[in-house]
């Protein structure tokens, strides 16, 4: 009879054998030492920070699903890395002269992954539903109604002229959903959100919760089958771990935010390709113009002289974020006014302005005391600290208030209880986004700034459809913003994205202008 001790020993032996079996089989897999596989047999592994809660792209804001949705769904029109609107399932579109009627002509050879043909019925259903059920971008799509003119033609009628309509239609929350699966159901709880049927370059295969989502190449994709056979999205919350995963070969693309301090070292590594992707975001100071002294334009202008933007970019972001020179991100180049420049750093000029405006230093050398409310996501606290230091040098005492993003949103966005706020935000895809930040009743206009001259121009910009005319208007807005200082931009936003060198034709390098942000349909793997 076996005594208790030796059966435990046997158990340990069995467990060790299991571990070794797993170890050996994992070791001998191609993953750890990728061989020269042709793209079709290759599994592209992409790491992301957050696992999506579900893959429903339109009903609510779903940032975590966005990259995946771009590979399994399509839109009417889409947007490339230069922020140009390009065809997607609609190969052509026309606009009526009154700017209210858009007609989209669809490809006739698109099929859903379950074989059902893609038609105007799907487009009409999706657009009407976004409006009716308050989809995430409903407020940006002033659609009165969408109708099918025939099987492959859709007419969209707007409630009023809106030049930004196409830009928003091409960007986010506008993926066309299968009517035959969603109609008559609750699109928030429909099981298609867990295992989607789509039209995209890849079809959904499986979802291992907490770990990965696997997509297979769609051989019937209407733009041509993708090169890579399989794409796996994996979720690694810690950015240092994600980088190690890339370096160790478990992943091929790292879309987590790479620690900025590591970027110079990564650029020297021949096995990696690092791309700094510049987004149309600005990190800026938002002054609460309803309170003194922020209501004084001379005070605000003095702030713009007092902040050393180069130093902030260098110290807070390791030089990764570009210095802001104007009032709008230059990435959207057609609307950027390069002559509407922020003043060069000059603390002495700032002090002159402050003294002339009546803010004289008291016995302690303090001219004014304000608070600066910032949320605690890096690098914003660091930026805030540097700004505080800059302003102290010109006699403005800054009290830093650091909050988690939700509390911050409550305090700044809802309660408007702040003097200065530090934030960032997407200013695209169309310069009409300025309306939200400095326009009347703008949802991001935390300081509730209002200049009737700017309001009039912004409204005009929404109505016109000719791009050259609109560009002139927005450039004028930027000149007025330099006079008014409603916001004080500090830096732009560039994010380092790292991938293995053997991955070619990425949307951000190699296939720019051909596919949208995270569409991997053109990716090929070179031998390595």
């Amino acid at each position: 009879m076996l005594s208790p001790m030796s059966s435990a020993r046997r158990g340990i032996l069995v467990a060790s054998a299991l571990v070794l079996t797993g170890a050996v089989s994992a070791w001998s897999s191609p993953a750890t030492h990728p061989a020269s596989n042709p793209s079709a047999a290759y599994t592209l592994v992409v790491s992301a920070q957050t696992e999506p809660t579900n893959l429903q792209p339109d009903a609510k804001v779903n940032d975590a699903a966005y990259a995946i949705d771009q590979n399994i769904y399509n839109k009417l029109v889409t947007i490339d890395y230069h922020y140009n609107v390009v065809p997607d399932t609609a190969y052509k579109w026309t606009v009526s002269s009154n700017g209210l009627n858009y007609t989209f002509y669809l490809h006739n050879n698109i099929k859903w992954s379950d074989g059902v043909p893609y038609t105007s019925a799907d487009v009409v259903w999706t657009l009407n539903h976004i409006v009716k059920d308050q989809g995430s971008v409903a407020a940006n799509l002033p659609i009165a109604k969408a109708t099918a003119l025939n099987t492959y033609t859709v007419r969209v009628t707007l409630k009023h002229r809106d030049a930004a309509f196409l830009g928003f239609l091409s960007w986010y929350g506008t993926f066309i959903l299968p009517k035959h699966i969603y109609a008559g159901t609750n699109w928030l709880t429909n099981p298609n959100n867990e295992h989607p049927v789509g039209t995209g370059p890849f079809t959904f295969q499986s979802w291992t919760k907490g770990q990965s989502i696997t997509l297979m190449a769609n051989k019937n994709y209407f733009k041509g089958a993708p090169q890579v056979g399989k794409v796996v999205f994996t979720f690694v919350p810690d950015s240092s771990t994600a980088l190690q995963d890339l370096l160790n070969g478990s992943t091929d693309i790292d879309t987590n935010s790479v620690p900025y301090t590591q970027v110079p070292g990564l650029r020297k590594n021949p096995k990696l390709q690092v791309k700094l992707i510049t987004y149309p975001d600005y990190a800026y100071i938002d002054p609460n113009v309803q309170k003194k002294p922020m209501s004084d334009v001379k005070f605000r202008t003095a702030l713009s002289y007092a902040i050393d933007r180069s130093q902030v970019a260098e110290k807070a972001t390791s030089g990764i974020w570009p210095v802001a020179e104007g009032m709008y991100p230059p990435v959207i180049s057609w609307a950027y006014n390069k002559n509407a420049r922020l003043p060069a750093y000059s603390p002495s000029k700032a002090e002159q302005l402050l003294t002339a405006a009546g803010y004289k230093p008291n016995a302690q050398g303090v001219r004014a005391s304000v608070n600066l409310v910032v949320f605690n996501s890096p690098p914003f606290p660091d930026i805030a600290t540097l700004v505080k230091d800059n302003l102290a040098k010109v006699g403005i005492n800054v009290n830093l208030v650091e909050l988690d993003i939700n509390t911050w949103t409550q305090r700044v966005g809802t309660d408007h209880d702040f003097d200065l706020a530090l934030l960032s935000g997407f200013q695209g895809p169309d310069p009409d986004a300025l309306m939200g930040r400095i326009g009347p009743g703008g949802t991001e206009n935390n300081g509730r700034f209002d200049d009737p001259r700017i309001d009039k121009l912004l409204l005009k910009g929404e109505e016109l459809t000719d791009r050259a005319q609109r560009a002139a208007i927005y450039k004028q807005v930027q000149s007025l913003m330099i006079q008014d200082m409603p916001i004080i931009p500090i830096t732009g936003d560039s994010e380092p994205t790292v991938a293995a060198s053997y991955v070619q034709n990425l949307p951000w390098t190699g296939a720019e202008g051909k596919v949208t942000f995270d569409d991997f349909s053109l990716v090929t793997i070179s031998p390595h």
Partner: protein
Amino acid sequence: MVVTVVVVVGLNFLIIHIAPGNPVDIMSGTQAPSPQQVAYLEHYYGLDQPLYVQFWRYVDGLLHGNFGMSISFDQPVSAVVGAHIWATLLLTLAAAILALIIGVVLGTYAAARGEGRVDLALSIVTYLFYAMPVFWLGLLLILAFSSWLHLFPTSGMTNLRESYTGLAYIGDVAYHMVLPVATLTLVQFPIYYRIGKASMMEVLHEDYITTLTATGMHPNRVMFKYALKNAILPTVTIFGLSLGYVITGAALVEIVFGWPGIGQLTLNAVFSRDYTLLMGIYIMTSVSIAVMILLTDVAYSLLDPRIRYS
């Protein structure tokens, strides 16, 4: 225990709702939505009702065994939690048991050896691990054993390029478990070492031990048949209490290793103010702590014949 659970549910509900921010504002992202959108979503999730109505609806659901729908997932809370909880339990139970065994074995060994270099060395090492931040240790282990020595995988629970099944799958998971379990074990075993050692030393000075040794009984027999059973009682208490936290206690390790567990789920739920999911997790944690305390008391009474519950 029923009263405890009721009070816990009520308190948790209140605390979660008092926190600033609400899920609809948050799910709309920093690109603030239109008022119609906010109103629509608040109505859909029942957040426009007064607090006591929301509470009553929730309790009513609970009494029917329904934990409600997660606001961020739009799926039943039980399904969301169920998908993540086994990974956590696998990790934390393995680490808890290993920590207990290693700690007690080392503690007993040190106590038996008495004061000396071995005791000093072990004390220093255990203090080091006890003081170490767990996420730092985790990343260190990744750098050493995965990036530098290529011995173990970097993160995750399974190999993503292959899909193993059956025995190979079990081996793959076990292989991926080594580093995260090691991290958790290393930061937990010092407690068992200290308490095990102190308790054993106390027992070894008892009169009956001296008597047994004087009778010429083999020291190993004295140790394992008589001393250990008494010395292990405080350790059992600690182990039982730590099991109560087995559900949410591994969040940092799960984050560093990308382990698909419930710790990270909880963090995301807090950030998105997903009230129903948070309530579900808190209730589970509270119930598991209450159950573990009960089981610890039972285990204690089984081990110690001086204690009997009527």
